[in-house]
């Protein structure tokens, strides 16, 4: 295979070789694709199919053994009905919504703001600022949550230390309703840098002639930002928006890490925590599989909906 690649003959090659070469060409892409495909099949497709299969099973007790033994049997839609009729799941999505409403716009807004600021010609210390804003993204989510957890707990919090010194008492970071802001803060802190880089890269890709033309027309930096830069990076904003939305739906490590520190976070606080609970605490793997399928389908639907809305808007704007 390697020789045929290395000694690729010029187009004016011998005609007789052509059929052989064509066949090789048709095989080659698949060979190159094979590693990725195998990994995809083994680690994505098979587990997904297995999860889907598992979601229609359940563990039922059978005699034999001292207490009886739970064996896997077909359950039909039982798991889906149980999962979808659990009021706690709705409450979990409700909490997720509150979190998402805080975190997604804040992440995108701050990312756009920082990207625009970094793109202004006269701003100093660009490289330093860019790295400083990006660094939190490099901190693993669990570490970030622990770090912030220490800053939230009344006994160890520097913020509460200050407010106590001022005689205002401690700040209830980990109580309802501040807990939503506290968790969103961790995610925003970690996520702004990544989204900023995407938007900033999009900004750098805008031809400078447009700015020159705008300046000649008398536009100031503010107008350039709002009228030219923002509309031109809308695709990047949509992309980061989808990322943030999916990220919000997958909220897990922050509340899970903060859970031992507060009574406010239950074991089914957000859907992913419920999945963990079902799979690993209450030993209901089929139920966990069913909820996973529901969450995955939901994520795809929400993402598709957002894409559809934004597409419609942008085409509408063009026409």
């Amino acid at each position, binding site marked *: 295979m390697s020789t045929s690649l290395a000694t690729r003959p010029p187009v004016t090659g011998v005609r007789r070789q052509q059929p052989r070469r064509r066949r090789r060409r048709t095989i080659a892409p698949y*060979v190159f694709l094979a590693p990725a495909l195998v*990994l995809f099949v083994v680690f994505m497709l098979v587990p997904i199919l297995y999860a889907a299969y598992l979601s229609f099973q359940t563990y039922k007790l059978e005699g034999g053994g001292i207490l009886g033994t*739970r064996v896997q049997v077909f359950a039909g839609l039982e798991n889906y009905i149980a999962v979808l009729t659990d009021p706690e799941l709705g409450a979990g999505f409700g909490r997720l919504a509150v979190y998402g409403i805080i975190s997604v716009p804040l992440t995108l807004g701050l990312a756009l703001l920082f990207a625009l600021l970094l793109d202004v010609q006269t701003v100093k210390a660009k490289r330093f600022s860019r790295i400083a804003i990006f660094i939190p993204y490099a901190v693993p989510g669990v570490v970030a949550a622990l770090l912030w957890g220490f800053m939230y707990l009344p006994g160890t919090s520097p913020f509460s230390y200050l407010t106590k010194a001022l005689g205002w008492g401690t700040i209830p970071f980990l109580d309802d309703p501040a807990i939503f802001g506290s968790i969103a803060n961790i995610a925003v802190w970690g996520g702004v840098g990544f989204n900023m880089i995407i938007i900033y890269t999009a900004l750098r890709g805008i031809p400078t002639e447009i700015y020159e033309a705008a300046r000649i027309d008398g536009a100031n930096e503010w107008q350039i930002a709002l009228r030219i830069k923002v509309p031109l990076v809308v695709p990047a904003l949509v992309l980061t928006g989808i990322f943030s939305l999916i990220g919000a739906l997958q909220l897990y490590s922050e509340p899970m890490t903060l859970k031992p520190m507060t009574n406010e976070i*239950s074991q089914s606080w957000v859907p992913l925590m419920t999945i963990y609970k079902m799979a690993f605490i209450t030993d209901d793997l089929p139920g966990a599989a069913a909820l996973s399928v529901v969450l995955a389908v939901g994520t795809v639907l929400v993402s598709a909906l957002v894409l559809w809305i934004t597409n419609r808007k942008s085409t509408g704007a063009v026409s």
Partner: protein
Amino acid sequence: MKKRRIPLAGVAALGVSTLLLSGCSGATGSSDGGDVTLDFWSWAPNTQELVDVWNDENPDIQVKYTDAGGGKDSSAKLLTASRAGNAPDLAAVEYTTLPSLIVADVPLDITELVTDAKDAYTEGTWEQVTFDGHIFGMPQDVGPMSFLYRSDKLAEWGIPVPTTWQEFADAAKAVRAADPNAYLASLPAGEFGFYAGAATQAGSKWWSIEDDTWTVGIADEESLAVADFFEKLVAEDLVNTDPLLTPEWNAKANSGQVLSWPSALWSPGVIEGVAPDTIGKWSMAPLPQWEAGEKAVAYQGGSSVIVTKNSDHPEEAAKFATWLNASEEGANLVLTVQNGYPAAISGQEDATSSEPPALMPQQADYYTLAAEISSDTIPVTWGPNVNVAESTFTDLLNKAIADGTPWRDAFIAVQDVVVKDMVKAGFTVSNK
């Protein structure tokens, strides 16, 4: 099109088989020469040292130890590994989770393999691993409930050490009066084991089984009275419900704002770890009682070592489990190296002559008292879904505390969830 698929499928199959093969090579098995290697999961401190002692003495049965994380993490991993068919030969399991693992078909019935071990234990201890006459584990350590308290502070404020829960309430009130920043104790909803123990002490049986029929008593009269009692303490701000062992709680334990920990005999080691500044300031007393003059206490925590059904060498594994837990040598190591309170009688006897735990060097009679406490314990039957009960209990009681609704309603709701879960799984429950 068809032709193209063939090499692709071939490559895929090759990839899969390579993965499977590499997966197999990771599992341990015996060589043909008669030497056996056993995998052992636990989380108790310094267990590797105990395993080393065994490995030196038994070159033909080598044990490979893995720290699998605390009781809850470990049992989740064990369950998953068992379903995948590659569970370790041996694993430490908390008494509370043992029944759910039996139902999930994880541990092996070792009744025939450990026939000589029964005499090493008291009846109450042995019952924790016995189900309908069958043995599913070797008890390692036990946690008879006890009351760990700041003897220096209580003495300073002239507050007597409570012997009943009523006195506990009085002491809690006196602590609030003496120092408005301090609480006698924190009793959060996450302490399922504590509340279960307090209810057991009051005469409740959260699970019991008779003729294949289960009875769940989480919402029986005794338990509801316990719920009312502690609800009142929390409502009057005499105790709080801050989660335990958080940086916050640890800081308060260090600074003298947490003055006691009603829990079990394993607690001194934990406090020594999180509040090292307070060594010498704590003492242990028997857990307060519901009726003055009573002595019996329940268990909180403690673990046993099981042999799994996946094990290829159950006999060797049972031999190791017996040595580790039931032999005089093993029980002594559990006491001196693991710093646990051994389940075996010999280990408990060794304890009476050993130094008190590092947290309370001044309390010379610590282990005499411990022996006295563990001589009068209430046998407990844990149900097949303690995991469901525990997470539901914590979530619902936390909600009740946050919303200010009656605790007894939370207990009743937990009972409801637990019974429904058991019925769904196919158990016969008398009070559904």
